[in-house]
């Protein structure tokens, strides 16, 4: 009994992920395969977005894209930290955190700092920072469940929360990503697809101004494919921005008749 009991506890954990990562899915390299959730290659997940999710914040939003569930609160404009230098324009402060149960195996998230910086860069260009000099706007995101394409969802949700908080914006920011899997471009990938991807592209843009605030590209791409991927992302962004806009309108109109 002692021999078996002496094994490290980790060997006991019934994790599916470790065995899965070793075996590269042969499925994706073939020409025709079906996505795990049955979507078409260029089809996005159903997007659900709502504003005013957190009462104690200046503005907030909740976004649910498939299994990716994100909540963003915006606080401020409020007093900057004492140590900060004087600034004529407002400051933006972003933070992204994950719940311990967000991923399949508990507490395996490490790239929060990275995401916080990316979120900051994606939003910065859309905010009229001159409208709140000397103060700071805090944007805090919590990923309740990670189901793939987390960062685009966080960025879009944060932009909606900023609008809900009444922060002056040039335009809403919408974000979308594409995975390069085998020979195919896969829109709005889920976690499983992201783990097998050969390359990825994420575009963050302000659709009504036709401006891109952030573009990241990883992996091995050919120029025509990049072009195709960009078209796909920009199209998805403009559609998402419509959803976000209608969500804001919905939130603004019934408030007069609230009991």
């Amino acid at each position, binding site marked *: *009994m002692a021999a*078996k*009991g002496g*094994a490290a*506890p980790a*060997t*006991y*954990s*019934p*994790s*599916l992920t470790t065995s899965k990562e070793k075996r590269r899915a042969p499925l994706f390299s073939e020409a025709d395969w079906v996505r795990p959730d049955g979507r078409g290659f260029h089809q996005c997940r159903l997007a659900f977005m709502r504003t005013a*999710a*957190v*009462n*104690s*914040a200046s503005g*907030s939003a909740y976004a649910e894209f498939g*299994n990716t*569930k994100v*909540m*963003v*609160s915006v*606080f401020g404009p*409020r007093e900057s930290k004492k140590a900060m230098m004087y600034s004529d324009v407002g400051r933006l402060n972003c*933070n992204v*955190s994950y*719940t*311990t*149960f*967000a*991923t*399949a195996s*508990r507490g395996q998230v490490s790239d929060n700092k990275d995401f916080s910086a990316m979120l900051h860069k994606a939003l910065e260009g859309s905010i009229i920072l001159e409208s709140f000099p000397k103060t700071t706007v*805090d944007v*805090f*995101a*919590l990923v*309740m*469940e*990670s*189901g793939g394409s987390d960062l685009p969802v966080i960025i879009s949700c944060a932009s909606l929360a900023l609008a809900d908080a009444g922060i002056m914006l040039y335009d809403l920011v919408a974000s979308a990503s594409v995975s390069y899997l085998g020979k195919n471009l896969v829109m709005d990938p889920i976690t499983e697809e992201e783990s097998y991807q050969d390359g990825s592209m994420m575009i963050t843009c302000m659709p009504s101004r036709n401006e891109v605030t952030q573009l990241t590209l990883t992996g091995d791409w050919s120029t025509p494919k990049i072009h195709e991927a960009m078209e796909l992302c920009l199209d998805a962004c403009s559609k998402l921005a419509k959803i976000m806009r209608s969500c804001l309108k919905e939130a603004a109109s019934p408030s007069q008749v*609230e*009991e």
Partner: protein
Amino acid sequence: MAVTGGSDLSSEMEVDAFRRLFPLRFHERHLLESIRPDGRSLGKARDTTIALGAVTSANGSALTKIGCTTMLAAVKLEVMTPTQESPDEGCIAVDFHMPPICSPAVRPGRPSEVAPVVAKQLSDVILSSGMINLKDLSLVSGKAAWMAYLDIYCLDADGSLFDAALLSAVAAFSHLQIPVVSLSDEGRIVLVPEGNGGGKFEKEPVNKEKRKLKLCTLPFSLTCALHKNYILADPTSEEESIMETQLTVVLDSSGLLVSLNKPGGSVFAHTSVIQDCVALARQRLKEVKLILNEAISDMDVD
């Protein structure tokens, strides 16, 4: 939220200003009329909702709202080797988090002071109430048992955090689905794939019958704010910040007292006040039990 008070719009601004400048007087004038700023009577708790299965990446989860206070609780199970002292018992780890999204007072990197206090209270109540028999978490005596990680996240902090957190924890445990596992040849615990239930799996599952955790009794709580001789059930964060002290009563589902907590404050609580609080908690217990049962039966239908 509807704000009672100034009935005509012209006085609206003045009421708001009065509320911010003289919060105590504002509330005391309400108390004289036996009503609270949000329209509740003194002994009434806010509207409560429970949604089970809010997070699919956990084995059990629940989202609860008491008024604006929102909590997300999730239970994740992992296999561990039990300790030598208790070879046939599992383990429960309780943690309570207040991420910066929940309140303007919490900043990233600077954890709130309330969170560890609530975490300790929760862990004490859950482990001491006898809700879960740790022996039920055992898989193979001396070799393998479940380690249940209960993590509760406060998504919106508006008073009575402990009540909402405990309710979400209880709801998450009632939603918990224990995965089917079997013993491999090397004596390791392996997960039986979900879809394979019908087809014969090569190994016999260890815990075929025990998919649901048996909850012996369910603890429910009510926090009351005490102010002079008033008792306010289920205070909001505004009320909590003004009132003199608080008292939290935890009862189990049969109405027996599990825990009583008065965290200091400037006034003493008389025996009669404590008895009144317990009576209010009894009433609240019936309400909450009904809401939880409804949420569970809704879940079974789906």
